[in-house]
């Protein structure tokens, strides 16, 4: 079975490709990339006027399976990911039970194999039960297939334990992903501490709850010599600290999420629980700093932090509402609307930050278009505008603060190992 992607504008930063050409796929792998390729018998995809990217990789999402299947499961989550153009996703371990043992890793991988539409890579826990008390069996997690470790949702508050985690993880060459948050500073805050929290009478989370924790984790990484990846960077000071660390040669990488470069704390107005997320949406100066960080390479990747929740966990008091928002199906459009359109990033930068870099940070053999590689490809139209309707997403969670937003840039095809999962914007399975 052959598939030919014809006349698309191929962007492959890993191979410095940026031109109109064709890609021929055979038996799930890329056979050839070149000009005027011919297809006698097979599936012809006309990509004229569209961009052809290495399949997008999400380094940070929540699939809620096992344990919270009422929010999301691997089938619904990977369907949503495919519609968002992602061919590979790394899911966080805050499931029930948490992904802190070989058996849970095997469960996720097995279920993804049976029901998943895209490649799923579990991220294991740093500590047993995500409790922040004792190290999880990190070696076992790695050999079972975990691509990173994180206690995401919770920080590892004990600095001594975090130091040991970094030292120990380095032995297995597994990426340590830090949810950096000082709980003593965050207390029981529910949104950014600033003007908006003042006028709404809600308890604030100060920006320093994030930046001081990032500073700690960077210093620990520098001391131990272990690389560290900083999850969901949201504040101006955080960007500055990471920038300085990179300048002096610390092995640190960083991610941000679409909601941190597109909207501010004012999205919480009217007690909109769909804008409740941790770290919280910040102020205008932070959004500007995050964009600067993306531009100058301080922030390496854009991850979704896709966090689906049930309506009953959102249509309640703001203080009680769950943190997080769905993100797969808006990530690319938000990047186009808020980064590409205003000229902050190019399509090459977007391909780097949403495919090449996340793949490299997690050590996946993805993010590039080369003969012999699995044919994971995303085809997009950067100019198409649409009104985003949150109720239309295929995730079980409809909790998006972007409902009704006019966005630009759409996913036309998502191809995973040669299988066309999304065809002409529609799910194809």
């Amino acid at each position, binding site marked *: 079975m052959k598939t030919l992607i014809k006349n698309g504008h191929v962007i492959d930063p890993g191979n410095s490709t940026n031109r109109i050409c064709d890609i021929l796929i055979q038996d799930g792998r890329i056979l050839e990339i070149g000009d005027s390729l011919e297809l006698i018998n097979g599936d012809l995809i006309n990509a004229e006027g569209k961009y052809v990217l290495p399949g997008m990789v999400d380094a940070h999402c929540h699939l809620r399976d096992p344990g919270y299947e009422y929010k999301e499961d691997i089938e619904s989550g990977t369907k949503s990911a495919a519609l968002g153009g992602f061919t590979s996703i790394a899911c966080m371990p805050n499931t029930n039970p948490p992904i802190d043992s070989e058996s849970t890793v095997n469960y996720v991988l097995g279920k993804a194999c049976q029901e998943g539409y895209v490649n799923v890579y579990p991220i294991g826990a740093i500590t047993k039960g995500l409790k922040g008390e004792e190290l999880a069996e990190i070696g076992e997690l790695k050999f079972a297939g975990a691509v990173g470790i994180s206690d995401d949702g919770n920080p590892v508050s004990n600095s001594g334990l975090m130091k040991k985690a970094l030292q120990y993880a380095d032995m297995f060459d597994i990426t340590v992903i830090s949810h950096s948050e000082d709980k003593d500073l965050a207390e029981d805050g529910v949104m950014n501490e600033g003007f908006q*929290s003042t*006028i*709404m*009478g809600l308890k604030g989370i100060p920006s320093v709850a994030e930046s001081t924790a990032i500073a700690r984790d960077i210093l620990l990484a520098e001391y131990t010599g272990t690389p560290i990846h900083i999850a969901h960077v949201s504040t101006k000071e955080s960007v500055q600290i990471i920038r300085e660390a990179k300048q002096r040669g610390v092995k640190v990488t960083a991610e941000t999420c679409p909601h941190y470069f597109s909207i501010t704390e004012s999205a919480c107005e009217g*007690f909109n629980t769909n804008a409740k997320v941790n770290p919280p949406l910040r102020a205008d100066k932070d959004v500007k700093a995050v964009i600067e960080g993306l531009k100058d390479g301080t922030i390496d990747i854009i991850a979704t932090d896709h966090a689906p929740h049930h309506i009953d966990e959102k*249509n309640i008091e703001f203080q009680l509402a769950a943190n997080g928002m769905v993100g797969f199906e808006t990530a690319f459009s938000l990047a186009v609307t808020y980064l590409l359109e205003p000229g902050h990033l190019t399509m090459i930068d977007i391909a780097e930050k949403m495919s090449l870099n996340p793949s490299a940070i997690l050590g996946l053999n993805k993010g590039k278009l080369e003969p012999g590689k699995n044919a994971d490809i995303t085809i997009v139209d950067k100019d198409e505008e649409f009104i985003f309707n949150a109720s239309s997403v295929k995730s079980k969670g409809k909790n998006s603060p972007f409902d009704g937003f006019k966005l630009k840039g759409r996913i036309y095809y998502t191809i995973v190992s040669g299988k066309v999962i999304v065809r002409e914007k529609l799910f194809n399975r």
Partner: protein
Amino acid sequence: MKLKSKHILGLRDMPVEDINYILDTAKTMKMVLKSPNKKTPHLQGKSIVTLFYENSTRTRVSFELAAKYMSASSANVSSSGSSVAKGETLIDTAVTINMMGADIVILRHPMAGSSHLLSKNINASVINAGDGMNEHPTQALLDMFTIIEKKGCVKGLKVAIIGDILHSRVARSNIWGLTRLGAEVNVAGPATLLPKELCKTGVKVFSTIHEAILDVDVIIALRIQTERQKSGLFPTIREYARFFSLDEKRLKFASNDVMIMHPGPVNRGIELSSSVIDTNQSFIDRQVENGVAIRMALLYLLTRREKNENTN
């Protein structure tokens, strides 16, 4: 004329015409309240339900009496002794009450935005009787009514709000109401009890009580809650009183005919010295009295609004 607002959620978003209309109507209600026979038929056939998730004496009783003076049917639900204690959600409880025919639901709740949430989920009008640290609009309305009774108007007055601004819904509602009606508002309190970027609301923020009350026409002292001390926001109640208590000596910094107000209940000797509470410049009792008038005005205007809607 009728009220624009269907719900009374807060003074931040309430149209100024509505604020003035409520304050005007309360004047008439006060006359009713002062008459020997405190009964009017205006709310006959209307049902008012108070839904209180926090303790309250003045707010709850004044709403209840306001409803009864105007011949409404009223019922009270409190978090203990109801399905709330069985874990029913706020929306489910409120929908249940709504289905029993409530025209107005009055909600007090420990979390900001709870009244907004109700207003989106039930048909009845919702009055916010205090939502977490966010707003307590009926308190601010009765405060402004009390000020107008004495001073004639709010515009051009200087008002100081002293104490725990961070946790105070009374402070927030007063800041919105007073600044929107043209008063100058000063605030002072321990730095740990002042919310971030407060000055952007249009108030002047001071670190000493002397500066904040200098030449002001009105001082509103806020209740200090002892549990705030335990969470480390200030060292001791004693030290709080030393720097922020209003006593006769400090009172001299304010204008001669300054009004002293407090939403109650007062911690004597902490927010205000007993001697200050018992002067004729203290309007604390008047505030309580006017609270009934304001709440009568609100119930009347909200139900009248519905009638107009139906006939339109």
